[in-house]
């Protein structure tokens, strides 16, 4: 089943075409990697899908529904959530408060404090942050802050989770832990798209990879195909 379908998606910023006629489909239960040189338009593509900015042209269909032009909060409640490259947690709030906001507002359900708190505690256990529950998010390390952002996203009970450079700044051991978490999330039935530059993660956990350059899709395939693709090596991977 197709969770997400993107057709001819385009975004112009004045004279600059940041995303140029991108087509993309995402199947249920897969982990899709989105890679490309810096400035290729990957985050802009995320922004278009999640409603952060409005596309100049094209079509976005999520779970069979047209979500073009909808506000971010509406799209989130339909089951599509994303994290940010710059890690946008609520620094003054505690870890628990960060996540429970996702539980309260991320779905169309009305929840009581007990229900939302229970879900929050479960998610914190799942992600491994239960011991930091009452710590103000600003006091955490970068790795933990990123995990808070993921936990908060999970609290919105998404069907599709879009991760934007979750592994940047992590050392290899931390990358391993993050990879395990992503796979755990997928095993819960959540489809995932990840923008990443950490090749270890992309090659090992993604079933399929899409490559963007100058706003256009230039390659698509399995990790093996992509890692041996001449064009991809030339523009992105290096020798």
């Amino acid at each position, binding site marked *: 089943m197709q969770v997400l379908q993107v057709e001819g998606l385009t975004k112009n*910023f004045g004279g600059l075409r940041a995303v140029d006629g991108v087509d993309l489909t995402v199947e249920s239960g897969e982990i899709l990697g989105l*890679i*490309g*040189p*810096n*400035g*290729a338009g990957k*985050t802009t593509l995320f922004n278009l899908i999640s409603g952060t900015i409005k596309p100049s042209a094209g079509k976005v269909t999520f779970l069979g529904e047209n979500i073009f032009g909808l506000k971010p909060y509406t799209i989130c409640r339909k089951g599509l959530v994303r994290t940010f*490259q710059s890690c946008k947690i609520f620094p003054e709030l505690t870890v628990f408060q960060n996540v429970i906001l996702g539980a309260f507002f991320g779905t169309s359900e009305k929840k009581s404090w007990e229900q939302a708190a229970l879900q929050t505690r479960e998610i914190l256990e799942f992600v491994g942050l239960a011991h930091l529950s009452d710590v103000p998010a600003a006091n955490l*390390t*970068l*790795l*933990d802050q990123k995990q808070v952002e993921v936990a908060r996203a999970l609290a919105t009970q998404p069907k599709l989770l879009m991760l934007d*450079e979750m592994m*940047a*700044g*992590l*050392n*290899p*051991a*931390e*990358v*391993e832990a993050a990879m395990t978490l992503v796979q755990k999330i997928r095993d819960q039935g959540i489809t995932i798209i990840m923008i990443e*530059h950490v*090749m*270890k993660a992309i090659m090992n956990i993604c079933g399929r990879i899409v490559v963007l350059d100058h706003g256009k899709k230039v390659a698509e395939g399995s990790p093996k195909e992509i890692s041996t693709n001449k064009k991809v090596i030339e*523009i*992105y*991977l*290096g*020798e």
Partner: protein
Amino acid sequence: MLEVKNLNVFYGNVQVLWDVSLDVKEGEIVVLVGANGAGKTTLLNTITGIIQPASGSVTFLGKDITGLPPNEIVEMGISYLPEGGRLFPDMSIQENLEMGSFLKKSWKVRKERQEQVFEFFPRLQERRKQLAKTLSGGERQMLAMGRCLMSGPKLCFFDELSYGLAPKLVKESFQMLQMLRDNGLTIFLIEQNVNQSLEIADRAYVLENGRIVLQGTSEELKNNDHVRKAYLGI
């Protein structure tokens, strides 16, 4: 060139660095390895004058620079690329680079330096009039690195240089570091990309929970069991 002796640093009442000592010789590339939260950025901030240590000393080219304000430290020939770059979002690429040459000595030669930077990063030249806030994550890293070089430093600290950069750019950045070293720049790297940084480094230190727990040549550390398990993921 740089000598750090027994640095003890506190955030309020909490001690974050214990008795940290290290040194960087002229023409070397030295790497500091450590997990998130180990105190690497704190150490850099202390050396470059942003934080005051409780005790210990920092000596550069024989002069005691402990606790000097950052602008004086830059004047002495130290440059610092902070984590995330810290660019001026509403200024153009060109303007950001010019800000790197703010001091009198550098201001005169800023045009030549700028050309050099554009040679390394052609993409920056393409977009030289664009505002920094409109750049992608990786482009910002490039710009930050370029700005760092604009003050013509003798010693440069790079904090998470490879953060958010495409693999090709990471390789090129590390190659460029080697070239810069061959041109006389001494380099101190903080890096999560331990693999590639150990390839180009001469020596390395490992910082854990605010203490230096290991040091040696990059060869020694590459073969060290603890480093391999904890940081190289082998």
